[in-house]
């Protein structure tokens, strides 16, 4: 039996741990992001730099994790080395169910180890194991293989690890879970690296006896049927997120060659349809998700030095990767694109940031701001092989230029110039939606400066003629509701299923009685807590930089109006300041 509100506290410096029941915290904040935020605030040293020992990593699951399908994500909170401010990232794989089975609701990782280590976490606590042998290993795939052999309970565990990008503190290094899922954005991999933490293996055999089994089973069946029989998950089920390439391109919203255009002439080549027809080799799923949106392409390559000798590689692709490492770099050759995606996976980089950084570097090179002896390789749109070399340079950092590039595009463009076409917002490289003002205002004001905060791209596609104020209100309303989804913690792809009715119903079977009003209020409260945390870490809305480039390329709404963005940001700034004032009075 297991308590769902046990928090595991780990100190990497002392190689010690303890477990504490935090029922009061879970009762108040539900779980997931709600709880993770509070744990972060309790444990992090306020003034700590992201790569200092005072930064902490909090991983949390939610009240319905393992109870219901599609609650298959773990939320991570940390200070981002990319933005220097609030960091949050979500990952699937088997991580969420493994943390539940190990008997924890959240895990807090503090301090720095004196040598490379990895942790084996179970109901029994934590083993601190020497990672000297796997530190510096070329591929995250190999690290996974080694750790699979070295740890128990196949099928009941998660193996979360960083690649060399994280070890070398690339500010947008990711953390890989089960090979193909990631805590992708905002540089959690570098925080792991700074702590000399190579990997976490989490497993457990805890079960929970369900008191009201009949109503639980009925509610489960309702969610399950919505997931597999309705159209709500169809797009993820069939072509996966890559099905977005064609429609987004048709709208002129697919950032191409560093957003010099919104249409990619070869979009059909890198579309979900074409990849499925020519390359799709297997589909896999996160634990407790019947959708299986993870699409793996296969490429078969001959060895040049040996006749009739081939290797076959499985490569996971999604919309964001096809944009950032495809259209954004002008790459239309599918094999070249897939091999580039594979290299990024092997090294453990965030694919979105990597693509945007390289797109900026290419344009800066073409404009003469960066020289060939900086780049070391002749980067040009569409040259996949050259980009493969460049991603290795980002990780190895053989010269000043690549050291700078490893800090992110915002930083690099401050040093080398070209800020007007350095596509980052709040310090985070942009995702693949040039859909209109809502997308960009969303990147700017979202807590993690991501399309995931409030899906502005969707507002752009569904609504017209909103005033800047209405737009900001809409985005904040959506972001506030998403705090509930992230507290549960469900996959955002299932947001159509986890509407308030289903959220209340599932929670009610677990003893939480929350009405619409209370849910809304809690979502808003968590949103405000995040803004307050961002403010305490130095975030100022007035300092947000908007790259000129986004105003030069038409969207399907026409050119984006600068003044519209300015009014929206001013309005958001007022809201932000009100929240901060209210919060400082409360605390």
């Amino acid at each position, binding site marked *: 039996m297991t308590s769902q509100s046990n928090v595991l506290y780990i100190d990497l410096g002392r190689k010690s741990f303890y477990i504490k029941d935090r029922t009061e915290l879970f009762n108040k904040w539900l779980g997931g992001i709600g709880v993770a935020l509070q744990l972060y605030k309790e444990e992090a040293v306020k003034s700590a730099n992201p790569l200092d020992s005072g930064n902490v990593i909090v991983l949390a699951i939610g009240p319905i994790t393992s109870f219901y399908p599609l609650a298959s994500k773990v939320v991570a909170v940390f200070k981002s080395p990319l933005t220097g401010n609030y960091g949050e990232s979500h990952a699937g794989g088997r991580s969420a169910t493994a943390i539940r089975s190990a008997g924890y609701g959240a895990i807090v990782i503090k301090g720095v180890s004196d040598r490379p280590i990895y942790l084996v976490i179970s109901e029994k606590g934590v083993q601190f194991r020497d990672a000297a042998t796997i530190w510096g290993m070329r591929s995250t795939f190999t690290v996974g293989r080694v750790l699979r052999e070295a740890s128990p309970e196949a*099928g*009941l565990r998660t193996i979360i690890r960083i690649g060399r990008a994280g070890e070398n503190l690339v500010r947008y290094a990711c953390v890989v879970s089960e*090979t193909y899922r990631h805590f992708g954005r905002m540089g959690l991999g570098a925080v792991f690296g700074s702590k000399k933490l190579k990997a976490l293996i989490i497993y*457990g055999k805890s079960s929970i006896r369900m008191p009201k089994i009949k109503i639980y089973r009925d509610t489960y069946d309702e969610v399950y049927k919505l997931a597999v029989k309705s159209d709500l998950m169809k797009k993820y089920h069939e072509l996966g997120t890559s099905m977005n390439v064609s429609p987004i391109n048709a709208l002129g919203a697919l950032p191409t060659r560093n957003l010099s255009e919104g249409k990619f002439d070869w979009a059909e080549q890198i579309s979900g349809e074409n990849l499925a027809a020519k390359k799709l080799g297997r589909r*896999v799923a996160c*634990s407790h998700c019947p959708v*299986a949106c*993870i699409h793996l392409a296969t490429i078969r390559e001959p060895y040049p030095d040996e006749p009739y000798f081939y290797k076959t590689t499985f490569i996971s692709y999604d919309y964001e990767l096809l944009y950032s490492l495809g259209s954004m770099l002008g790459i239309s050759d599918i094999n070249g694109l897939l091999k580039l995606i594979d290299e990024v996976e092997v090294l453990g980089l965030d694919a979105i940031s990597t693509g945007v950084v390289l797109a900026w570097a290419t344009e800066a090179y073409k404009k003469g701001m960066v020289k060939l002896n900086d780049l070391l390789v002749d980067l040009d749109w569409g040259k996949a092989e050259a980009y493969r070399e460049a991603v290795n340079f980002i990780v190895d950092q053989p010269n000043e230029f690549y050291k700078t590039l490893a800090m992110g595009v915002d930083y690099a463009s401050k040093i080398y110039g070209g800020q007007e076409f350095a596509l980052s917002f709040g310090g985070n490289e942009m995702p693949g939606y040039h859909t209109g003002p809502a997308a960009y205002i969303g990147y700017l004001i979202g807590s993690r400066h991501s399309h995931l905060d409030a899906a502005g791209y969707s507002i752009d596609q569904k609504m017209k003629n909103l005033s800047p104020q209405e737009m900001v209100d809409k985005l904040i309303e959506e972001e506030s509701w998403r705090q509930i989804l992230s507290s549960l913690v469900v996959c955002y792809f299932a947001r159509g299923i986890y509407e308030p009715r289903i959220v209340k119903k599932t929670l009610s079977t677990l003893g939480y009685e929350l009405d619409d009003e209370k849910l809304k209020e809690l979502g808003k409260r968590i949103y405000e807590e995040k803004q307050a945390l961002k403010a305490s870490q130095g975030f100022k809305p007035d300092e947000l930089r908007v790259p000129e480039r986004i105003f030069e390329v038409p969207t399907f709404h026409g050119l984006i109006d600068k003044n519209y963005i300015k009014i929206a940001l001013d309005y958001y700034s007022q809201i932000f300041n009100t929240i901060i004032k209210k919060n400082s009075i409360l605390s």
Partner: protein
Amino acid sequence: MKRLVITDSERCVGCQLCMFACSRRIGFLGLDKSALKVKSVGGFERGFTVVVCRACTDPPCLRSCPVGALRVRDGGGVLLDPSKCIGCRFCEKACDIGAVFWDDSINKPVICVHCGYCVDYCNFRVLGIEERAN
């Protein structure tokens, strides 16, 4: 009698809904009380192995039991009498495909009864039910 079978493990996406279903059938949430198991074949990139009881008609697990806690089920496989089981784990070792699982919390084996509850939660038709003459 019915028997749980694997129709095609190549179709398995590794979602483990069958395992959750098996635990839920007996009133539990989790994976370790499941009488079947899904694990990767050396990483997600290689696909998955699904381990289920094959319903042997002459079950080695039964023959290994020193206390007669297992008896042959009609249609193959075994049924456990927990009151006789002493938790020696011989049955677990006797099953070459690893389909006798272990419940650490009660120190008894978990063995499939071929009820087919899991089949309804496999969205990819990896699992099926087969009729077998007694």
